[in-house]
């Protein structure tokens, strides 16, 4: 019996030893930088489709050829998970897309190299977008493109309701009154997505926001935010706006494309959806109506992140430089319908696509997503609250957010 017990102990000890051995195997090798000579860059992208994948691959191949490096573009199925694996294994891709909504999570754990702090030409990017990639006063990465919300109007339904161009709403009051006129004709006036990524625009228009600008404090429970949610609630309660779910649609753009609503508020991605899925709907795009504290919209963006553990940071930065020139941004815009993130490129883009002017204008005052780490579950909880806004208590939703966010932000 004794010897068997010894054998078990030996096996257990062996397993522990192996754990230790593995541990040392995983240990970070002293980051050896290779700043000259040919580099082999791994670039992971969260592609919106074949058009984007092809465009990025082509641009990367061109850069690789002219600079003498190799660049391998990997379109990710689930970039959050694939990056997580790469970072945990100390073997992340050198360059990767970072969504503004996830940026603070990566920056706070030290996964990103703050290369943009010293990058030449970083001033050319839209300040609001740069703010989305700033963590603790450091600009980590440069935005690769931008999207903003605007008001889309179905022109057929608009004239059916007896409205003209002069009726296009520019304030909350006007929005309410045109919505009432549309509703009187038996048409659902508006579809609003039931998430913070749409309803948040009303907060900006009322002069509030979920968190402080530096993302360190939760500031949801304020009179401004309450006013904004109360306004959205009044639209929902009076049948002047509906969530997509109530219109049997997956998102507001689908309800709009099917001609179920006269208005919606979506971003420039609605262009692609309309031309492929609903080519027969005629519509026009305007800036969102202003609230009590002026104009406000939300901006969405991704940046070219460089891994802090990359072996080829110099070459990676050269690659990002090449991907974010004004010309390259404009050719990306043409290839897969995103807006440039550089001010100079945006001006050219606006000239080339005058119909998109409201989206470009929005980029100048757009508010980025909540920029703070460890907020994913708090924001998911907020969305659950906003889904029940029609019958819920706006103040309770805001207070609940503050309570949860305080724990996450540790303040």
């Amino acid at each position, binding site marked *: *019996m*004794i*010897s068997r017990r010894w*054998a078990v102990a030996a*096996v257990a000890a*062996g*397993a*522990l030893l*192996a*754990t*230790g051995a*593995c*541990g*040392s195997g*995983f*240990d*970070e090798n002293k980051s050896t930088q290779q700043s000259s000579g040919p580099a082999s860059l791994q670039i992971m992208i969260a592609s919106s489709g074949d058009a984007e994948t092809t465009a990025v691959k082509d641009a990367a191949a061109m850069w690789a050829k002219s600079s003498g490096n190799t660049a391998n573009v990997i379109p990710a199925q689930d970039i*959050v*998970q694939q990056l*997580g694996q790469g*970072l*945990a294994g*100390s073997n992340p891709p050198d360059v990767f897309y970072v969504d503004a909504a996830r940026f603070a*999570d990566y920056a706070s*754990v*030290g*996964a990103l190299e703050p290369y943009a702090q010293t990058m030449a030409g970083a001033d050319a990017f839209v300040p609001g977008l740069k703010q989305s990639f700033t963590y603790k006063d450091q600009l980590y990465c440069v935005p690769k493109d931008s999207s903003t919300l605007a008001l889309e109007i179905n022109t057929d339904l608009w004239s059916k309701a007896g409205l003209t161009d002069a009726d296009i709403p520019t304030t909350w009051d006007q929005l309410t009154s045109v919505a009432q006129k549309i509703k009187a004709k038996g048409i659902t006036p508006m579809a609003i997505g039931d998430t913070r990524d749409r309803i948040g625009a009303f907060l900006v228009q009322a002069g509030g926001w979920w968190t402080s600008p530096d993302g360190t404090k939760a500031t949801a429970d304020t009179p401004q935010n309450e006013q904004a949610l109360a306004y959205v609630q009044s639209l929902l309660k009076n049948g002047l706006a509906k969530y997509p*779910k109530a219109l*049997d649609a997956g998102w507001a753009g689908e309800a709009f494309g099917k001609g179920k609503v006269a208005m919606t508020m979506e971003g420039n991605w609605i262009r692609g959806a309309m031309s492929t899925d609903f080519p027969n709907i005629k519509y026009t795009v305007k800036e969102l109506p202003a609230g009590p504290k002026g104009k406000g919209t939300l901006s969405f963006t991704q940046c070219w992140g460089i891994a802090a*553990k990359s072996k080829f940071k110099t070459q990676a930065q050269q690659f990002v430089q090449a991907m974010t020139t004004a010309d390259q941004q404009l050719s990306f815009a043409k290839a897969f319908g995103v807006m440039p993130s550089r001010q100079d490129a945006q001006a050219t883009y606006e000239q080339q696509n005058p119909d998109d002017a409201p989206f470009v204008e929005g980029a100048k005052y757009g508010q980025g997503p909540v920029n703070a*780490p*460890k907020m*994913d*579950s*708090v924001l*998911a*909880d907020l969305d*659950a609250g906003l*889904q*029940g806004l029609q019958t819920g208590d706006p103040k309770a939703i805001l207070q609940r957010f503050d309570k*949860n966010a305080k*724990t*996450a932000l540790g303040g």
Partner: protein
Amino acid sequence: MSAKGIRGNERTAGWIFVAPALIILGLFFVLPILMALWVSLTGWNGQGSPFTSRVPFVGLHNYTALFATDDLARQDFMTSIRNNAYYVLLVVPLQTVLALGLALVLNNRILKGKSFFRTAFFFPSVTSSVAISVVFLFMFANGGAINALLSAVGINGPQWFSDPRGLIHIALDRVGVHNAPAALADHGVLGLTWWDWLSGPSVAMCAIITLVVWTTSGTFMVMFLAALQNLPIQLDEAGMVDGANAWQRFWRITLPQLRPTMFLVVTLGLIGTWQVFDQIYVMSQGNPAKTTLTPAFLSYRTAFRDFDYGSGAAISFVLFLIIVLFTLLQRWLLRERRGH
């Protein structure tokens, strides 16, 4: 202890024979579990190795936080436990009964085209769960096949994957209880009110339950069928001679003999249902309003989305304990009772 003798060398030989299995088990099973256990005791944020001195050791904090701190993390965890408990409560009995029923039908001597039905019933089990999940997404879409069928018989089907209402809440609503009674809404345990605990599975969860029952009962049917075909026919015939009817023979003769298989099926069912992940990941990601959040998915989300690998690992170990407890419990319930 003198182990020497004529069989003295057998022990060494035995160890050598089992060594390959032990090494593989140790390397790919014991070792990862030990490593995960270590991670669950740390505040590792997923950057670099968790086995360096720079990773903060936090002791049992990740575990106590799941039960003792009144915050969102505990609330999410308890919500996921609630959802999964309702899921297990419905899936395990339904799939066991369905599997047994199908096996009994296939075991019937007068059934024609047996192999066709056997294949048909077994087919969902061998198909990829992701593929089936996607097909079910289409079937349960608002304008999908299920709602089309329901509307054909005059029922206005629910918006399956966007309806967060619990079945028990809906039932109470029907009988006139529209708002939570104060006694249930104002008191609670572990971060959820009693009213929340008693919500029942949501409509969205019911769609997933249907899918899982349909896909897994085929596997368990095969197990029951194998057991049924091994039963001695003489006992059944003896029952007939004694004048027992079909129901009595099934209840008193067949079913008791199936006890080991029943134990296997229920155990595998419990383990599988507490670990449900792929259907949730593909179909709902925990939505709507967290009613399809399960511990396995929450563990994944905490680790890979919030970079809180310690908490994520802790959730998976709590899940492991829950599974062990339930398995022990049903082992005790299904034990052979003497003098019966």
